[in-house]
């Protein structure tokens, strides 16, 4: 992560600002509790005892969009739900990221019909797509780590 320190410097650490900020952002990311369908159950499994998402500083699921910075769209998004989802996204404070969990959220999955939005990227910008129907908890964790890697690449010039 680019943290540099001089030996014998009595604990003084020098670091680039963007590295420090990116480090802070990835280590305590608050996802929004936004379960829609089957994938939500796997998302719950991911947080529960066996897979333990709190290892990544993410045990705190916020039910309110105003307190969260990561939206995990877990499940199929219907035409009726789409405006609600967009409103929730708009209520989240910047910076914010979206993980599209599962095939239905990513591209409609097996439900290519009148009721389902064919991919949540029609409504909100998506950072990471996680494939699977539903994805295993390991896959979701991999998606989250991919997002972390991506955030660490962000530069100060991109924030403006």
């Amino acid at each position, binding site marked *: 992560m680019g943290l540099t320190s001089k030996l014998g410097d009595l604990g003084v650490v020098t670091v680039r600002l963007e590295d420090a900020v990116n480090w802070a952002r990835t280590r305590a990311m608050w996802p929004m509790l936004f379960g829609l369908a089957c994938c939500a159950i796997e998302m719950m499994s991911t947080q529960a005892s066996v897979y333990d998402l709190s290892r990544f500083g993410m045990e705190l699921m916020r039910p309110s969009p105003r307190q969260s910075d990561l939206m995990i769209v877990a499940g199929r998004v219907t035409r009726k739900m789409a405006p609600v989802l967009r409103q929730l996204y708009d209520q989240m404070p910047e910076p914010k990221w979206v993980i599209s969990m599962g095939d239905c959220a990513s591209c409609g999955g097996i439900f290519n*019909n*009148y*009721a389902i939005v*064919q*991919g949540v*990227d*029609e409504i909100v910008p998506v950072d990471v797509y996680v494939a699977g129907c539903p994805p295993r908890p390991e896959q979701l964790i991999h998606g989250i780590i991919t997002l972390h890697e991506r955030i660490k690449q962000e530069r100060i010039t991109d924030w403006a």
Partner: protein
Amino acid sequence: MLDPVEAITNAFPDAIQDVIEFRGEITLVVDSDRIVSVCRFCRDTKGLEYNFLSDVSGVDYYPQEPRFAVSYHLYSMVHNRSLRLKVYLPSDNPVVSSVTSIYPAANWSEREVYDLFGVYFTDHPDLRRLLMPEGWDGHPLRKDYPLGYETVQFSFNFDEIDRHKPYARE
């Protein structure tokens, strides 16, 4: 314990249009004007006592005429047997009386049939759309309603599909 076909046809000789037995299930085709009184008879007559309504569902037989059908699945917890009542409705005026006053369980099932098939239920306490958003155009489960297929995004048509996603690149 009464034989349901005999008892109901005796009580309503002109309302029962047909009796079908298929795989051990009895279906009575009922005149659409009389469905409420037949249901009341089925529930209240000693020996029948169909006290439980499992399900109300619609069927669209497009392009046949009469086009719509509504099936009522009755069940008797007393005698442990079930019965299906069926009404056929024409395409130009699919209206039938609601059985909510007899079986309150029919409330949402009838709303669902209204929502997805456009069959109207008179005397229903709260006939609004249930599953689709208000103001949705059409009734999705009708056979002449398209499934609504969207082209899947692959690498060869990536840009074309991407143009339909104005929010994806914010």
